[in-house]
């Protein structure tokens, strides 16, 4: 066979593989949305869940998921940035940084249920935090941090070395070069990583069952006092998230409309993640253009 023919065959194989990926993705998304979207209503989004009767909503679970996500990112982003910057811009290649990288990799392949049990033993029991949003956020930080750190490190590394030399040759310190030149240039990559990890956090269930708990106590959305037990902002209250709710409704719920609730909740979960994705991408592009002055 000649080169041209081989090229055709190779292109065909590649197209087929890509089509398979897209097909699987579209099938899953389509199935979830097709089954769930018709059952999503304003009432469903804004009313509390019911334990025994039909017609319950997901108001608290949806809020808990978002709140937990925000808390987790607040905890993990500074640590991830610090570690990523250290590994990419400051650390020299030696056995110590190799050890850090290996640990990060091992940590990232830890099953989330193990992270959950570890969080249960350490935060919930030992440190007496109880089933709480805070325990959940710390457990999710453990779960999220390795990939986030890795991603930030890679994004920073992918900025050409010429940029660092330019900064150095103009008398900028390593810190200034990193924060004012390298970090802005790496921002789109870091943002993509953050979005991906936000999706993982938002959809995580196993690590939260043992840390944030499976109950959603009624909270008062007009109580802004973080320390009040009934406040929606209190990080020390137990909080069932949307993903945990889906799991629970499917396993131990006695509500007659369990099927409806789980499919509608799944659709909401997917839609929220899609909104994050598109929104963050849009914001990231805008930010990048503003910093780099490209049109």
């Amino acid at each position, binding site marked *: 066979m000649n080169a041209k023919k081989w090229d055709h065959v190779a292109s065909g194989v590649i197209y087929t593989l890509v089509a398979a990926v897209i097909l699987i993705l579209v099938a899953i998304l389509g199935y979830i949305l097709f089954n769930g979207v018709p059952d999503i209503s304003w009432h469903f989004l804004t009313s509390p869940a019911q334990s025994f009767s039909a017609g319950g909503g997901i108001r608290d679970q949806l809020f808990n998921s978002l709140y937990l996500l925000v808390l987790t990112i607040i905890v993990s982003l500074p640590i991830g940035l610090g570690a990523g910057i250290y590994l990419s811009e400051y650390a020299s290649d030696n056995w110590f940084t190799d050890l850090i990288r290996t640990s990060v990799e091992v940590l990232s392949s830890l099953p989330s249920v193990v992270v959950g049990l570890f969080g249960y033993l350490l935060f919930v029991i030992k440190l007496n935090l109880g089933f709480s949003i805070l325990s959940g956020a710390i457990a999710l930080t453990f779960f999220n941090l390795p990939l986030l750190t890795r991603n930030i490190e890679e994004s920073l590394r992918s900025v050409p070395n010429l940029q660092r030399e*330019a900064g150095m*040759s*103009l008398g900028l310190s390593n810190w200034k070069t990193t924060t004012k*030149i390298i970090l*802005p*240039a790496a921002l789109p990559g870091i943002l993509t990583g953050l979005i991906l990890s936000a999706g993982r956090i938002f959809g995580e269930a196993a690590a939260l069952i043992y840390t944030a708990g499976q109950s959603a106590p009624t909270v008062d959305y007009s109580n802004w006092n973080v320390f009040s037990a009934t406040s929606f902002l209190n990080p020390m209250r137990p909080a069932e998230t949307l993903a945990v709710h889906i799991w629970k409704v499917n396993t131990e719920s006695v509500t007659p409309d369990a099927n409806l609730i789980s499919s509608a909740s799944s659709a909401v979960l997917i839609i929220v993640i899609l909104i994050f994705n598109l929104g963050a991408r849009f914001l990231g592009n805008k930010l990048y253009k503003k910093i780099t002055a490209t049109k």
Partner: protein
Amino acid sequence: MKEYNLNESYITDIPEKKALSTKNLQVYYGDNHAIFDANMDFPRYKITALIGASGCGKSTFLRCLNRMNDKVARVDGNIMYRNVDINSPKINVYEVRQHIGMVFQRPNPFAKSIRENIIFPLRNTGIKSNDELEERLEQSLRGAALWDEVKDDLNKSALALSGGQQQRLCIARSIAMHPDVLLLDEPASALDPISTSKIEETLQILKKDYSIIIVTHNLQQASRISDYTAFLHLGHIVEYNSTANVFTKPKMQATDDYVSGNFG
């Protein structure tokens, strides 16, 4: 390759004032001895070219002069600048680099606007007055012969410029710092002939105010623009003399072979 006696060299004493001098400079990459005993003086307000075959150490030598080899290689010996040894560990390297600027082989503007590319490093040196920043912006872009081409687009991204314009922006960025010495590491090797000649013209104007040291492997370029030329071979400075002498009356056999194309 022909063998030359590398222990022999001809290093001229320059009559001009000195911008920089190196004394017994040695550079090591790990166990690899890259520069042997470099002793030479760079004149003020002149262009000095460093020439030699690839791997002879000319870029390594150049990068020592503003401490860009820190963390990359071990540099022993003295580099005297205004009677101070800037190769000493006690020296503030960031300040050294503000006095001794550098332009690299590949243009490396920051992913910022043209204006920010020049103003941002200036602000870092503590200049706050907007008038002064704007003045230096215009002055440096004029100095690098770029002003007329970009004066209406100062807020556009520097990455949208052509390669030659980007390189002149990098020169402008360096001279905006008002350095004493400008180090250029093959600044035109990635550019087309028109951009190259623009950069060469720019350098001729700049040497009135700056001492320029340029690494090039383009021999015509060295003979066209430089006042002094140093020829390096295998990490040794073999010959250092006025450019006219190096190209027409070389004292060393290796230099003669290299400039006449009989090398290797």
